[in-house]
């Protein structure tokens, strides 16, 4: 149920962010595309949960609860339509704000995952910290891999960003 909610948030919020419009067609097409993000989170969650065989709940229940920890990213996704609707600052470009603001859910999620590991997976504080590190590493690797793929390769991305920074 919770993975479906995450998918709904993405499928509704991202088209609104992009075109300030919402139709059933937009939601359905977005749901198909962005289900990849939910599957990625499922995979990362499954790895973290699998490292704790002594947990008190079933694997499926733990996975569902894992998605409760997606709240910071859900709230950030809900915030995105405002980023593109309201001009922030003289630059009037939402991409920087999108990029910088994602740090907030990333950091918040670390605390959520730590609590999840302690309560749901029933691991020690040290074990929770290790799993938080594992989770953050997987999110960063997956995130950068997606960004590099979408930007046309690491060299193309880095050279373009460098030119933008030099141009400022």
């Amino acid at each position, binding site marked *: 149920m919770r993975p479906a909610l995450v998918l709904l948030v993405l499928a509704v919020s*991202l088209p609104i962010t992009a075109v300030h419009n919402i139709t059933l067609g937009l939601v359905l097409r*977005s749901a198909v*595309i962005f289900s990849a993000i939910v599957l990625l989170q499922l995979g990362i969650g499954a790895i973290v949960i699998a490292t704790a065989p002594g947990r008190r709940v079933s694997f499926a229940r733990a996975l569902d609860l894992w998605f409760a920890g997606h709240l910071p990213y859900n709230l950030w996704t809900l915030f995105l339509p405002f980023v593109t609707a309201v001009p922030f600052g003289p630059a009037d470009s939402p991409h920087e704000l999108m990029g910088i603001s994602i740090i907030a859910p990333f950091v918040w999620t670390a605390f959520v995952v730590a609590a999840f590991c302690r309560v749901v997976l029933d691991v020690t504080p040290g074990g929770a910290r290790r799993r938080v590190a594992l989770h953050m590493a997987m999110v960063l690797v997956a995130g950068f891999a997606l960004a590099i793929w979408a*930007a046309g390769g690491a060299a193309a991305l880095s050279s373009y960003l460098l030119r933008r920074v030099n141009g400022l």
Partner: protein
Amino acid sequence: MQSGEFLILSGDFHVHAAPGDGSLTPAALRDEAVRAGLDVIAVTNHNQFVAARLVSSLSGEADEPLVIPGEEVTHPDYHLIAVGLEHPVKADGAVIDVVAKIHEQGGVAIAAHPMHAFAGYDDDAALAAVDGTEVAHPERLEKFRREYVKTFERARRLKPHIAPIGSSDFHNTPALGQCRTFVFVRERSAAGVLEALRAGRTVALDDHGNMYGDPSLVERVRAAQPAGRTDANAPWRRLAVLLSWCGLAGVLVL
């Protein structure tokens, strides 16, 4: 709209789609193109053809905007829009070599946001090889905008019929068609659009209302008064957006 022997189409030839670094699928982009008052768009993701391949699955209704598969060939030294591709082009080698590969497929090559720091366009032969240059782009830095205009002026001196191009470089912000290209086509088809681009029968429009191109074509565009964004159901659309967002926030809170 008709203008003498030509039909003037409104196009955006630099649009990113999902899957890739765009938010919308090609089908969703086509729907949005209607609202943006566009007759033709090109799907051009960075060095990949996944979204462009989806274009062939779209139905080809006569009154719907044309969607042309393409790619933004992305190299550390240049970005090059390829419109009208059948398969992807690799971003290896100099501009002139990549342009040749695009032409082999019957595609059209456009210098994308050609800022001064892109060394690939320093060579006159490279700039003269492309079919068009992006002169109107919703770039927020004036410095870069001036560089796009300078590159276009240089390109025009090298190749007088080079096509001025205006595009939105749409990714995930509401700018589809914000800058656009008016194309003087003989027939309303992808082939007709590509032929007009190759012949340089275009006028670029930026987001400040400035037009670039052959003065006689600019005059014809002004006389034709092409429709811009057509958002007939704006109040209902805003209400739907508001209700959807509030509904979603409510579900999250509960």
